[in-house]
């Protein structure tokens, strides 16, 4: 396959970037998207040019490190797939592919396509700890949890924190991520002692980081490689409202 790549190049956070065109020949359809970028970088290095910086780690769709807006879509055109699991067979010979970083004020560009997503870490940190009693591990079935809640909590916990929701959202809102992190605890008995405090603090931190506000387009859910449902956002909207009332009514 022959590809025309248009890639966002930016020296560092403060520099102004621009789209640079590259031609790539002999791309195997069996390559993953990141392997295609590896090939490009090898060529750039052999020519003495600066390779394209991009985030990646596990390359099996579970770490949440890879990102990229590929032809205007977070993680590319395939649904429920991370960039590392996107294969070049999804593209045609002679295609032009525009590759940009995830763009949001809360995700400053480090270099080229690599962005700083530590705003997500700070939101999770703001949620604080989960109370777990010390001592021996509790018996597996000591706390009965309804099957439905266990499933919903597990679905929410599938979030890998890649930031595709923010990247795809027309408003650069982080509500799908924050609501998934909040839901996985709010649905389980272990998460109850700090439930209200967690909701208030995580939402507060989310706002402080400069993410946008949700206007219910649901592009986040459509772009999420793990299929996190916007039902979680509704849960967060409820959690926050109740938490605020409870916090106010406490002496």
């Amino acid at each position, binding site marked *: 396959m022959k590809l025309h790549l248009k890639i966002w190049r930016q020296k560092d956070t403060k520099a102004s970037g621009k789209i640079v065109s590259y031609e790539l020949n002999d791309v195997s359809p069996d390559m993953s998207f990141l392997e295609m970028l590896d090939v490009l970088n090898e060529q750039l290095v052999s020519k003495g040019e600066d390779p394209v910086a991009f985030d990646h780690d596990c390359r099996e769709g579970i770490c949440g490190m890879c990102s990229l807006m590929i032809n205007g879509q977070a993680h590319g055109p395939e649904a429920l797939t991370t960039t590392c699991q996107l294969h070049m067979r999804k593209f045609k010979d002679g295609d032009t592919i525009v590759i940009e970083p995830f763009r949001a004020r809360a995700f400053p560009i480090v270099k080229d396509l690599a962005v700083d997503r530590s705003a997500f870490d700070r939101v999770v940190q703001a949620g604080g700890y989960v109370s777990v009693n010390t001592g021996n591990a509790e018996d597996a079935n000591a706390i009965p949890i309804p099957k439905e809640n266990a499933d919903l909590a597990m679905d929410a916990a599938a979030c890998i924190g890649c930031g595709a929701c923010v990247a795809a959202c027309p408003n650069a809102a982080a509500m799908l991520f924050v609501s998934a992190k909040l839901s996985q605890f709010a649905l389980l008995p272990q998460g109850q002692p700090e439930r209200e405090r967690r909701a208030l603090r995580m939402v507060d931190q989310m*706002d402080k980081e*400069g993410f946008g506000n949700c206007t219910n387009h649901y592009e986040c*859910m459509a772009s999420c490689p793990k299929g996190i449902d916007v039902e979680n956002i509704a849960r967060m909207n409820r959690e926050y409202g109740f938490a605020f009332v409870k916090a106010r009514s406490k002496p």
Partner: protein
Amino acid sequence: MASYFSSSIGRKHILAFTGLALCGFLVTHLAANLLIPFNPQAFNTYSYKLITNPLIYVAEVGLVGLFLVHVALAFWLNFENRAARPQRYVSKKNTGRGTTPSSATMVITGLVTLVFLVLHVMNIKFGAHYTVTYDGVEMRDLHRLVLEYFSSLPNVIWYVVAHVALALHTCHGFQSAFQSLGFNHPRYTACVKALGKLYAVAIAGGFAFIAIWAYGRGGV
């Protein structure tokens, strides 16, 4: 309490609540307006009883308040949303499974509705004051004003265009408000979405029908 009103979710709650309340107002407004084609006397008498009730001032202040809060919050949230992505994408494509024409145009349809509302209040509420007497009681002849206003084709076209905008706005706004207030259910959300579409078409269609009917009648 200040943190609630400045938080993203708190403001979304209020935007949703005021939006739904305004949706409720539109239902009562349309219900009354539907008297226009069928019973001029009933319409004028209803209007007379409404505007001579001293509580109308309380209701009007409440309505204006709801509207101003809704508009102010929408501007505020939109301003923040734009600031949240200072550098636009060179290439951005929606998935086709999220954004709808209705959701993508909320700002523009909201602005059209805002302009419409200001003109509507000027043209009707503060418009020409005709009177009519029923059973010895003199009252404002709003029916005549409506017929007169809609005898002009540009007025009818603008009215219909504004109501297409209103339909698009409420089509997303109605179901979106439920989500913002925390209501999302695997079974009932589909009903809410369908109800939102029905609401949007019925309300905007109802108002537009009256305008077109009045134009078809060819004046007073």
